[in-house]
């Protein structure tokens, strides 16, 4: 088995995820892109288990990451929905970091 194949797959997935996070306006799509990145990490972890010849900590780690991701997605969607309730839009472009002086 050539570990470099899944590794490169993971790297490309991570890049795609990053691209998606920055590219997408819709908060749900941003979350999907984040999922891509997390999965890339998982793939690396699982692949690493085959290369390091040690007990399967990578897989355990991957399992934990999956749970973590699920929890975050849960809370994240709740947050997004709360935003939607208040503004009828989930476009991250409409979430300002700071407003021009005097607008508040």
């Amino acid at each position, binding site marked *: 088995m050539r570990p470099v194949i899944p590794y490169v797959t993971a790297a490309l997935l991570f890049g795609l995820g990053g691209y998606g996070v920055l590219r997408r306006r819709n908060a749900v799509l941003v979350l999907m892109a984040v999922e891509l990145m997390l999965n890339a990490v998982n793939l690396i972890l699982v692949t690493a288990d085959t290369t390091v010849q040690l007990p399967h900590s990578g897989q355990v780690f991957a399992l934990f990451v999956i749970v973590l991701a699920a929890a975050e997605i849960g809370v994240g969607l709740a947050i997004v929905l709360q935003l939607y309730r208040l503004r009828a839009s989930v476009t991250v472009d409409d979430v300002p*970091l700071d407003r021009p002086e005097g607008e508040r």
Partner: protein
Amino acid sequence: MTGLLAVALPGVPLLAGLLGLLLPASPRVAGTGEDRARRAAIALGVTGAAVALVAAVALLLRVDHPVEAATTWADLGGLRVTLGYRLDGPALLVATAVAAVALAVQVYSIGYLRRGPHDEVEVDHRYPPYAAQISLFTAAMLTVVVSGDLILLLVGWEVMGICSYLLIAHDRRLPEAPAAAMKAFLVTRVGDVGFLLGIALLGVSAGSFRIADVLAHHHSAGTLTAACLLLLAGVAGKSAQFPLHTWLPDAMAGPTPISALIHAATMVAAGVYAVARLYPLLAQAPAALAVLGVMAAVTLLLGAFAATAQDDIKRVLAWSTVSQIGYLTGALAVGAPAAALFHLLSHAAFKALLFLAAGAVIHAVGTTLMSRMGGLRASMPVTFWCMVVGLGALAGVPPLSGFWSKDGVLAAAEAAALDGAGPGPAWVGWLVWLAGLLGVAVTAWYATRLLLRTFLGTTRIPLAEPHDPPAVLRWPVLLLAVPAALLGLAAFAPWFADRLRVPADASGEAVELVHLAPNLLLPLVLLAIGAGVAWAGWRGDPAADPARFLGPLRPVFARAFRLDDVQQALVVRPTAALAGVVRAGDELGVDGLVEGSGRAAVGLGGGMAALHRAALPRAAAAVLAGALLIGVAVALIGVAA
């Protein structure tokens, strides 16, 4: 007892001055407080000067050899500054003259600074601070005279400067007085920069500022020349020598008694006295003496010529002082400190007399311009005769004091020129001698002119009712006329001559002050020519000014060769302009940099804040891009390393 007297000499006037300053300066209710404060001020001032005079005379009689005492005043890292006196003949003679003139001035001022017939009602002379400042002035001069330490001398030297500043600015009715006062102080202060540096050089070289130590120490030639030249700068300032003489004529803005004090006994005398005090050092520095000689010759003639064209009676006298001080420094330059001191004393007497007499005239006429005087002899006979004595002494009419003392100077210069007797080069002797001879003629000319214009001829102001001054003004004048007339004869007393000898004088021989020799005739002839020309000019038209014969030179002389303008153009204006430039540079450049960096920080902050005025994705982009950049950087560094 000697020590006590020596301390009392400057101490009592100092105390009187300090106490006087505490008196209320100006009455709140006219008529009550004024009189009490004024009386107290008079008492303090006169007492101070009188005690000083008594002390000086007592010391003069008691001390026949140099006396010295000192205690450490301050020790700055091994440099010792002492507090002490150093009494010798010259010191005590000068001290006596100072105290006498001061006493005369104090008494004279009582009458002079009283609300006169020509004054407005609201005029307030503020007598208490005036009298106190005179006392301080006297004390400072006496400190210079008796001081045994260069730093202490400097103290008196500068306090004198500030007193002259205060007194010149005293007359609040004259708009030019403050400026004149400032000019007087500043010009002398510029000279004092040199004086301080000279003292510093000497003190550092000797490791002590005590005059005895400084004189005893063997200084290197370079140090000595540099120090002496620097000292001369201070002397030039205080004694109104070219090129730092410009303040003296302007100082006429002060009350006339103050002019008498400054010209006769204090400021201008101090410089010459200081040189005499340190003469052993100068005698070893021919270069400095040469400079002094040139300075003296220039000053002598400059003052004399400038005096010829003045219309203001006090200015004539002021320029005459400049010229006479030229004689003094000239004598020093040719190696005759005793002659210099002798002329200093007689000059003190006749110049005080002249100023006080002129003050009486001004008091009576209400103006200082000779063009508005004339024919006062009839109404002011006492003043007239006193003036005659004074002017005669000034011009050098035998047997008045000025004749003998000026002759001493000329003789010394002649000896230096013809025999090379002086410590400096012979050409210095020639220079001083020739300038002195020419000066005699010119002096005679303007003295005659002054007398004629003021007292003879017809009255040019019909309305004034001139009269001889009241007793309080008259007596000081009369008493001063005595030494002005007779002091020259004292030169025949060996006791007097012996006391005029500078103790450390290299020669060690008895000083011969009077030279009864055929060459006395030369200055007499010149005197006669000068006086005669003036008289002849006046005879032609008694109403006109003899100065008209000066022709195109008259305005040049009247403005003293426009040296004031030169000073203004070369020093004052550039300094003011530089100050403006530096201020602008400091506020815009140095401070601008500070303010600018503050503004830059705020601006930078604003720019960065604007970067954050964006939507959420920019935060995510920052995280990812930041991580990417850091990763790339780390990877590159790793590869490079």
